[in-house]
C-alpha cells in the first residue's frame, strides 16, 4: 500500500484531502503561468525604468508605470538557502516527504521560493548552480522547479 492510502486509513481522509493547492493566476500574473505552461520562465520587466518585479504586480513597484514586457529568463540560478521538510506538512504534501524548499536566486536578479528536485539532499550546498525544470501539475499549470546544473 502506498503512503497516501496508508494515511487515508490512519487519519480517515478522502482523496479530496490530498488535492494540492495550485496557483490561481491574477490579471497581472497570467502571462507568467501561460509561459510556464510552455516551459518558459517569464519575468515582468518595466519598459520605463527597467525594474523586474517578481512576483509581478498590477504596475511597476518602482515607478508605477503600466508599460512592461515579459522577458524570458535564462533558467539559471544559485541556491541561496534551503530547508528539508520532514514532518508536519499539509496532507497533500505528506506523500512527498522529505522534500526540499529553497530560496533560489535567478541570474536576472529576482529571488524565488521553489523545490530543488533530482538531487541527493546530502549534496545541497549554499551557492550551488541550479537550472530550471518544469513540472506539469494540471492542464493549465506547470510549476518551475530547480535541479542541480548538469556538468
Amino acid at each position, binding site marked *: 500500500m502506498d503512503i497516501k492510502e496508508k494515511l487515508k486509513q490512519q487519519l480517515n481522509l478522502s482523496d479530496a484531502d490530498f488535492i494540492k493547492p495550485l496557483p490561481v493566476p491574477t490579471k497581472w*500574473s497570467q502571462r507568467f503561468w501561460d509561459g510556464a505552461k510552455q516551459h518558459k520562465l517569464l519575468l515582468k520587466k518595466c519598459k520605463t525604468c527597467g525594474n523586474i518585479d517578481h512576483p509581478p504586480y498590477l504596475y511597476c513597484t518602482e515607478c508605477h508605470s503600466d508599460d512592461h514586457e515579459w522577458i524570458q529568463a535564462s533558467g539559471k540560478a544559485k541556491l541561496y538557502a534551503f530547508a528539508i*521538510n520532514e514532518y*508536519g506538512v*499539509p496532507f497533500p504534501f505528506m506523500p512527498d516527504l522529505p522534500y526540499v*524548499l529553497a530560496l533560489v536566486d535567478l541570474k536576472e536578479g529576482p529571488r524565488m521560493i521553489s523545490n530543488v528536485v533530482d538531487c541527493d539532499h546530502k549534496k545541497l550546498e549554499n551557492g550551488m548552480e541550479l537550472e530550471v525544470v518544469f513540472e506539469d501539475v494540471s492542464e493549465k499549470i506547470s510549476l518551475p522547479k530547480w535541479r542541480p546544473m548538469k556538468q
Partner: protein
Amino acid sequence: MNKPEFAIIGTGEVPCGIYPDRSEFEIAYTTARMAIQDAGIDKNEIGAVLGAVHIMGSEYNTEVFFGRLPEAIGAKGCKITAATVSGGGSSFSIRKTAEGILHSGETDTVLVIHAQRFSQFSANEQAKYFAAAGSDLEWDLPYGMTYNALAAMMTQGYMAYTGTTIEQVASVCVSHRKWANLQPNAMFHKKSLTVEQVLKSRMVAYPLTAFMCNVLADGGCAYIMTTAEKAKRVCRKPAYILGEASIYSHRSITNAVCRDLGKMHEFYAPIARKAYERTGLGPEDMDIFEIYGAYPFFTLMVADAMGFVEPGRSGALFESGETAPGGRYPCTTNGEALSFGHTGTGVGFGVFVEAVRQLQGKAGKAQVPDPKFLIEDCGGGAFMDIHFTIMGNEIPG
C-alpha cells in the same frame, strides 16, 4: 530626545496552554478585570477599549468589531472601541492606536486586550493557516511551503553565512525554557530542556527540530495604558514608553529589503539605534532585552541588532548562559513563543506585558533585580516588519 508621553500602569494575564473550555471572551473579560485591579483605577475611567483580532477568525472578532468588550467589562466611560491587527506586530500597532487616542485628548486611559483560543481548530487547519500566514498562496504554497520551512531556510542561511552552530541555535531554546520555568503562566513552566534534548527531538524541517519550532496555544493578556502625566499621578511605578522605531520590509520573504541572511543586523540595527537615540540611552543602559523571536534564529538576528553583542556572535552569547536567569544579559524573560507558548498575535503582547511586569517589579520568580530600562521588539508576517521599543520605570536625563 523625546519627552515620554505614555505609560503602562497595570497588566493582567491568564495561563498559556491548551484550554479548549476557556473561551476567548472569558480570557478577555478575565484579563481586563485583572489589569484594572492591578492598575488600581476605576473601570469607568477607561475611555477606550482596544481588542487584538483573533487569529484564524472566530465569532469573538465580530463581537470585538461591534463593541462587545466595553459592555461586558462595564467600561461605562468608554468613548472609543476598535480592533487592530498586523500579525505578530499587533502588540505594537495596537499600542500605536492607543497612543493616537491618548494623543487626541479624548481620554487619558486606554484598555488593551488580547485573547486567543487555537484549540478550537484542528492541527491540520492550524498548519494550513500558518502556511498561508508566512507564504504566498500563488507563489509558495504550491511547492509545499510551510511556516516551519520558512523559518528553517532562514535558519539554514543564518548559520551558513554567520558560522553559527546548530548547538548555539538550540541554546536559545534552552535559555528561553529556563526563564519559562520561573513563569507560572508559561505553557512549559514545569518542563526542563537541554541542548541535547533539543537536538535529539524529531526533525521537522531541516535544520529545525521539533523543540526549535513553537507550539500554538490558548492564552491572552491585557494592560492599562495612560498618558505619562496620569501615570505619574496614579501609579507608584509606571512603565514609561521612552522611545520607539519601526521598519517594514516585505510580504514575501523573497522580496526582503535585506537579502543577506548573514547581515540582517545591517537592516535592523539602524532601527534599534533610532529607538535608543530617541531616549538618549544606549544598549549599555539596558537591564533586560525582551526579544520576540518566534523561532531561535530570529532571536539571534534581533540580538545581533540590539547593540549588546557583536553581530553574528549572538549564538555564542546564548551558548554561554549569559542570557538565562542570573546572566549578565537577561533575554526574553517569559520564554516567548518557544516556551511560554505561541498565542498568535499574542506572542508580542506576552513579551510586552512581561516587560511591564519587570519594570513594575511584579515579575515574581523571574524578576531581574531592580531593572530601570529595557528594549523590546516585535514583528509579524514572514518577518515583514520590526518594531523596537525602549521602556523604563524612570524618565532618563
